[in-house]
């Protein structure tokens, strides 16, 4: 899985309270399956997937596909033992912030997670997608779509209702986050803001760009 045939290595981190479904969400995304039992990972705390990203320019043109090697990092509780400033937190380029639609406390804690993000992520306004997970459990819902959407708007981040159990919006959320991150990269001529190791450009982002050499230097 880690052969070098890709244009970008991008790391995303899933955050949120215990039990909101982070591991199941990532498992659904990478393997298209739901496992209601905890997958007791033997040490590895991330999952990987290859995707092709096609940027859509402001003129509506579709660029050539970029091969993305995605690493999706899980936090299965190890953040309680480590400082959140450890490399794996800092190195993430985008964040999936999950809460459980059937658990109001996990929704209230979204504010805490956002402030943690603002402190510890590579910049103060990293790309985040808010996910209200377990939307398949409609009869147990404790958080309304309106209040969740309102909170997301306050932070200026997209909101989706997801189900790791049936897969609803799971791919969509990761696609939206990837798009935000790739758009941010394209906007950023000087890539010095990119934390080391988060994006590994195996080739130039834009072969026609006159800033090519600078880009490669900064992005490596």
């Amino acid at each position: 899985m880690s052969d070098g045939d890709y244009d970008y290595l991008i790391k995303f981190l899933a955050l949120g309270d215990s039990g909101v479904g982070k591991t199941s969400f990532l498992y659904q995304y990478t393997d298209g399956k739901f496992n209601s039992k905890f997958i007791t990972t033997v040490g590895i705390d991330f999952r990987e997937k290859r995707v092709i990203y096609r940027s859509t320019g402001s003129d509506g043109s579709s660029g050539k596909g970029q091969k993305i090697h995605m690493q999706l990092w899980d936090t299965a509780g190890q953040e309680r033992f480590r400082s959140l400033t450890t490399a794996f937190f800092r190195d993430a380029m985008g964040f999936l912030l999950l809460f459980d639609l059937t658990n109001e406390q996990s929704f209230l804690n979204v504010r805490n997670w956002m402030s943690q993000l603002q402190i510890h992520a590579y910049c103060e306004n990293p790309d985040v997608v808010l996910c209200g997970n377990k939307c398949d459990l409609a009869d147990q819902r404790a958080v309304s779509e309106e209040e969740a959407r309102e909170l997301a708007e306050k932070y200026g981040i997209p909101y989706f209702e997801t189900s790791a159990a049936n897969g609803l919006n799971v791919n969509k959320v990761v696609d939206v986050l990837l798009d935000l991150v790739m758009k941010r990269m394209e906007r950023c001529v000087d890539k010095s803001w990119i934390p080391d190791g988060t994006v590994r450009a195996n080739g130039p982002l834009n072969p026609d760009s006159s800033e090519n050499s600078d880009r490669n230097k900064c992005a490596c």
Partner: protein
Amino acid sequence: MACEKEIWRKIGEGFVQEYYNQFDNTNRMGLGNLYSADACLTWEGSPFQGRDNIAAKLANLPFKRIKHVITEQDFQPTIDSCILIMVFGQLQVDDDPPMAFHQVFMLKSQNCAWACTNDVFRLGVHNIPV
């Protein structure tokens, strides 16, 4: 061969049992008493020195409940009459899934009592793809 255990093994096992018993069943402040005054702890790469600093670190870990399950423990006597211990096990915190951990202790006899002089803790979580 007699089943009698070596003395260093008995001391080591006694320490491991007491350490995790206090860790799981108390407010963890008393754990400081198991360390020598100038002991060193490396907790997930962060260093702490001295009994008080170590006790404060362990007592302030952010969870309500923790349970350690020891899978294996190994002991060795050292040439300077200390005891080296490696513990390999799983822990579970609140409602989180279980995680593997490794912990290494060095015990030294000081003033007729055994105390931990060195402690290195790591979760068994890998972050480099194979």
